[in-house]
């Protein structure tokens, strides 16, 4: 059972802002979900190898060749805020 402090830590890891209400709801739901996925932890796996890809593909290489995909204008076309060919963001260095 995860505590409120642990849930807060997960919100922080996930880069999600939260209110006290969010925290309370998440605490109940996440603990329910963790209870449901507990069966996995109890499954005996012995020396079984983990599967990250169903066909066992590994390191697929291609030639390092430049191909035209997006223009600068296209790449920036959905930027929420920009200045010329730059994306504008708020202050990066913290004030405190």
């Amino acid at each position: 059972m995860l505590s409120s402090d642990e849930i807060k830590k997960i919100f922080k890891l996930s880069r999600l802002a939260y209110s006290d209400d969010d925290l309370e709801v998440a605490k109940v739901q996440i603990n329910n979900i963790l209870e449901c996925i507990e069966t996995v932890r109890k499954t005996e796996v012995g020396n079984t190898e983990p599967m990250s890809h169903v066909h066992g593909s590994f390191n697929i290489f291609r030639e390092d060749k430049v191909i035209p995909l997006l223009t600068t204008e296209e790449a920036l076309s959905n930027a929420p805020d920009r200045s010329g060919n730059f994306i504008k963001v708020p202050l990066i260095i913290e004030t405190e």
Partner: protein
Amino acid sequence: MSEIRKLGIKDLQSGLKNKEFSSVEITQEFINQIKQDELNSFVLTAEDFALEQAKAADQKIAKGEISALTGIPVAFKDLILTKGIKTTACSKMLADFIPPYDSTVTKKVYEAGGIMIGKTNMDEFAMGGSNENSCFGPVKNPWDKSRVSGGSSGGSAVAVANGYSPVSLGSDTGGSIRQPASFCGIYGIKPTYGRVSRYGIIAFASSLDQIGTFAKNTEDLATMLEVISGKDPLDATSVDMPNNKINLGTSIKGLKIGVPKEYFIEGLDPEIESTVKKAIAEYEKLGAEIVEISLPHTEQAVSTYYIIAPAEASSNLSRYDGIRYGFRDKEQKELKDLYSYSRSKGFGEEVKRRILIGSYVLSSGYYDAYYLHAQKVRTLIAQDFKAAFEKVDLIACPTAPTTAFKIGENISDPVAMYLCDVFTIPASLAGLPGMSHPCGFDSKGLPIGLQLLGRPWEEEKLLNASYAYQQNTEWHKKLAY
């Protein structure tokens, strides 16, 4: 023209060839139907774009240049990028996103002459099994408007089931094509992982996501699959397999169909059990040999999925930070706040829930216990199937444990919602091809689907069996409209 919406690819193309109607006329007719939609299945109608494409198709038809989809409208799930046409994943996060490029499947449909008629509603970022997690609201079931369409590709399923488009594209991560196909009484296929390029698809869980298609009949599924399949240099996980013409109509005499005992369990609606068993008996009548099999790790599949899929989702969705594209909370003055508030305000509840779970199971101290362990159980699930396919050619089972449930019925209980995918998730974890075809109705008049699963790359076997069943039954002729 009222009959147009009942037709599939083959009949529409023969009408186009014989000049009974033009592509512009049928495209306009489908668009008129979409405009009267009361089921909330489309989030965007691409009227001008589609009619331009239809005009070009008519010119080609006049010259006798006809490809697999020339002049045929196709509806696209709203996570498939379409250059210059808004693609939102039904999330506030991407509410204004206009893709600067086309996905590979988009290009393939265009190259085959298909008309992009509109973008369909879905669960936000494909996370959900009822289409209730969309920022555009739920999609209603055409057989009973008080019920869900299924999800996450609910809009694409309804587009076909209610005659707004002859075929559509969807995506399936844990059952998001097969389950809504079953709930809506139509055909849906999730190809083998790697059969279809994921380039230009808004990602949910990259080791599971696969693009597939919905149709009114098996032949149209086969046609669509031929169009969208193929190795793509822009998707390293796509696999170079021969993309041959799919042959339907071969006898299924002697075909060995396995029926997994773990799929007929408590919680399975008894009406579904009897209907699916009747359909399996029909296969036996057609000459198939029915064999009981066991997939011992079935019970662990949902839990395994709900570790692996959220883990991949939390990683994939970290790109939405309010900086380069997507929603930005402009009230925030500091970068850290901009990240967390843009994400918090841009994502819906289910998406946030999955990011939280994913971050937790990948976090230091828990990675081995959850994520790594789940990956090992995933291997065991895949091995179960491998062993079963040494004895049988196909597996037949119910697609979902219930028929379409009421809107709102499961929304406050994520775990209950997750269990809706209990029969579709195992094949997703193993990367196998799977499809759902209609096989009857329950006493409430709601459709029931039969799921067929096959060995990797053996989609043709699934489709051929489905075609044999279709030839000898009438379910595909039952329409919701």
